[in-house]
């Protein structure tokens, strides 16, 4: 599938509809309650799907890929931080916060890569949602640690921060979904399948419309945030995805699974990380990390990144 094909996928088209609406300043606005419920739905549904898959997986097969995912999550922010400091000349809090965003993952990008692979009929391991969950957390923790160690910062206790991370909407719903999926199993989930499984792609399309609107508002900030952030927002995901590709291949994932791990590595969080960073690293300027993650990396990944990472995975195998 070429990048043009990917661009013409209806899910991506919805994203473009949202972006264009923002750019032409259309009156179109999705109510915040709808943003909220769509993100809750998608996180739960991703979790449930993962849980269903887990319920039929062998645990022994999962251990190595999980370790791989965690180490990717730990390594990326550690690589990103000095780049942001030295090349980008960013302040410590800004660099730490952006690093955390790029170590963490975007659940929506994850959903898009799955639908990309489905469309190509590329098989992948069933338990990749577990990797998603595992990747969400360590990077945020590392980001906070870097910020704490490098800046005279600390009005909020580590306890509160841990609470923020683990019981924040995003992680909580993913884990809750996983549990529901594992415990319910295919039979148990059957009666709610029509809500939590089948309409997933349609809901994703709707959410991407909304994210297009939100991202378009970020585009106007690009001028202010400068060219470095654009380069970083494109270069960093490719670098991270390369790491993800190598690790994925190393821990024995299939081409599909490797593409997914690479995409996870290459994606930047905009649900869990912004919420955690705003509280954990208040000195970091949200405009920077939101613009990079949402205005640059997210659209880049949707349109160019995912096909590229698939290509990378094919090459290494």
């Amino acid at each position, binding site marked *: 599938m070429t990048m043009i094909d990917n661009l013409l996928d209806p899910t991506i088209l919805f994203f473009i509809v949202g972006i264009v609406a923002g750019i032409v300043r259309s009156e179109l606005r*999705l109510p*915040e309650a709808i*943003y909220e419920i769509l993100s809750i739905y998608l996180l739960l549904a991703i979790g449930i799907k993962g849980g269903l898959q887990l319920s039929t997986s062998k645990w022994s097969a999962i251990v190595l890929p999980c370790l791989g995912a965690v180490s990717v999550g730990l390594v990326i922010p550690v690589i990103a931080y000095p780049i942001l400091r030295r090349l980008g000349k960013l302040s410590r809090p800004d660099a730490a916060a952006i690093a955390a965003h790029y170590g963490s993952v975007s659940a929506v990008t994850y959903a898009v890569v799955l639908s990309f692979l489905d469309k190509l009929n590329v098989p992948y391991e069933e338990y990749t949602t577990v990797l998603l969950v595992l990747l969400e957390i360590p990077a945020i923790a590392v980001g906070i640690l870097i910020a704490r160690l490098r800046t005279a910062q600390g*009005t909020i206790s580590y306890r509160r921060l841990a609470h923020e991370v683990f019981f924040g909407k995003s992680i909580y719903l993913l884990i809750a979904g996983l549990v529901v999926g594992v415990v319910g199993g295919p039979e148990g989930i059957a009666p709610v399948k029509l809500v939590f499984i089948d309409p997933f792609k349609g809901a994703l399309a709707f959410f991407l419309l*909304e994210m297009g609107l*939100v991202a378009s508002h970020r585009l106007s900030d690009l001028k202010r945030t400068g060219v470095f952030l654009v380069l970083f927002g494109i270069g960093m995901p490719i670098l991270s995805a390369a790491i993800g590709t190598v690790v994925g291949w190393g821990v024995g994932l299939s081409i599909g699974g490797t593409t997914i791990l690479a995409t996870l590595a290459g994606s930047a969080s905009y649900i869990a990380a*912004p*919420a955690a960073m705003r509280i954990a690293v*208040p000195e970091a300027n949200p405009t920077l990390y*939101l613009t990079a993650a949402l205005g640059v990396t997210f659209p880049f990944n949707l349109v160019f990144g995912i096909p590229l990472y698939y290509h990378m995975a094919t090459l290494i195998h």
Partner: protein
Amino acid sequence: MERRRKLTIITESAIEGLLTDQLERLGAKGYTIVEARGKGARGVRTGDWDQNMNVQIDIICDESTAHRIVTYCSEHYYKNYAMILYLSDVDVIRPEKF
């Protein structure tokens, strides 16, 4: 009917929880929260998603409590968060409540 102060805080909804946890400790007997959007020194906050929403918190209290809360906010949040604070006079019914 007695005179009290109404302290209004308009800030990012991200810190609503942190803030309300403190209010009681600082002597407020209550507060009212309304969802808001707006524009200020930190740009437009359109209220269309998590990271872009404001809350407006009104606290009716006596002068000294208002002062304590203002001081707390100025020490903890002024520098890093979109936030404005202002005070006005109100005449309350059932003054013992505030």
